[in-house]
């Protein structure tokens, strides 16, 4: 469950500048299992997604995720919220696939052998079992994104935030990642340009020029976005 209470983000200006609003205050409760966020590049989608786990702190209002105030309990929130970025290279920090997934488990599983076993299970679940010992930089883009997802899923997050996870992928890997995201048990907040994926969500938020301009039925909201972009 994600609650936004007049939560917004603005950045201070430099001398002679009044600053800039990245996201106007927005209030809503996101309780649906699959929520999509759509909008043009630079509209504020990623800012909205990053507020959910405190990567981008709200400068006004309050964000409550999994029942915790993000501003006061950032670390606890991040232990419950998984985040997948567009570029997996930034997210993968260990030399091999197995070690990267095991890194996610270091806080919760003290025994190294058990950690490796659990990491192998996660890799098998997403179809990367044979790449456990493969150097991360030798994986393809699609495999890296799967691995990034594996590292997040290993911790069993309550909420999974994905910021354009398929933007850099070809059709084949896009389908694989989409399929995995369909299966996750966690509540999913998906920032995407893939309108088909957005239509399959339970609820869609449309962000435009730093404002949430539509929020509701997926098909109607996606149509509104398409109409809006056609006029530009």
């Amino acid at each position, binding site marked *: 469950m994600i609650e936004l209470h007049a939560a917004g983000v603005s950045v201070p200006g430099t001398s002679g500048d009044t600053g800039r609003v990245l996201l106007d205050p927005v209030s809503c409760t996101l309780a649906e299992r699959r929520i999509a966020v759509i909008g043009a590049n630079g509209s504020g989608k990623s800012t909205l997604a990053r507020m959910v*786990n405190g*990567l981008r702190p709200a400068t006004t209002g309050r964000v409550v995720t999994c029942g915790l105030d993000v501003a006061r309990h*950032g*670390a606890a929130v*991040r*232990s419950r919220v*998984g*985040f997948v*970025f567009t*570029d997996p*290279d*930034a*997210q*993968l*920090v*260990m*030399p*091999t696939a197995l*070690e990267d997934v*095991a*890194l*996610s488990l*270091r*806080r919760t599983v003290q025994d*190294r052998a058990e*950690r*490796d076993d659990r990491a192998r299970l996660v890799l098998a679940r997403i179809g990367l079992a044979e790449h456990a*010992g*493969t*150097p*991360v*930089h*030798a*994986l*393809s883009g699609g495999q890296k994104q799967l691995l990034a997802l594996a*590292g*997040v899923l290993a*911790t069993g997050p309550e909420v999974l935030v994905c910021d354009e996870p398929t933007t850099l992928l070809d059709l084949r890997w896009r389908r694989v990642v989409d399929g995995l995201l369909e299966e996750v048990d966690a509540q999913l907040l998906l920032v995407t340009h893939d309108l088909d994926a957005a239509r399959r969500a339970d609820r869609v938020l449309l962000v435009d020029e730093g404002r949430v301009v539509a929020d509701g039925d997926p098909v109607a909201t996606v149509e509104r976005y398409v109409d809006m972009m056609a006029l530009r």
Partner: protein
Amino acid sequence: MSPGPSLLGLYRPGSTVVHRAPLRLRMAVLGLFGVGVVVLRGPGPAIVAVLLAVLTAAVARLPLAATLRGLRPVLLTAAVVLAYQTWQRGWPVGVEVSGDLVALVVAGTVVTATTPTDVLLDGLSRAVRPLHRFGVPPEGFALAVALMLRTVPAIGDLFTEVRDAARARGLERSPRAQLVPFAVRAVGRSRAVGEALAARGIGD
């Protein structure tokens, strides 16, 4: 996909005497080896240090091709240093400085190639724990080392991309067209990695 993995920063499973030696012993030997390389002057000790490091790598059965591929940038640097120092200060200094460099990198590679990163993280965390009282977080220190190991190939890939982009624009002879985007992208990447670490709750 990269053409083939280099060895730097990558664990190679095995059961050699080097693999089986306790991490503490390997780190202690590496530390003493480093001190010896720096303290003992002249080309003779440098050559002996290189031979010792290469011998240890052979005992650990590090694959020759992958090791050489990973060491290529270091060997190129050592060749430049050898030429420059020989020209400026004579061949004994050239051999000493370049030999020391190669010996230390090969020795470091032997340790990282025979130790799973997870084990290295635990070992480093334990080793720097006494520094906790001075504000050095053990997990953070160990993670920084792991990140450095992962970054070696990533920086190589980044440099190749930037160089190819400069070539595509006919700017292969312009250092600025290569170094500026490389620096900008390296900083951008480090910021993105920091954000991703925070998102994974690592370092919280």
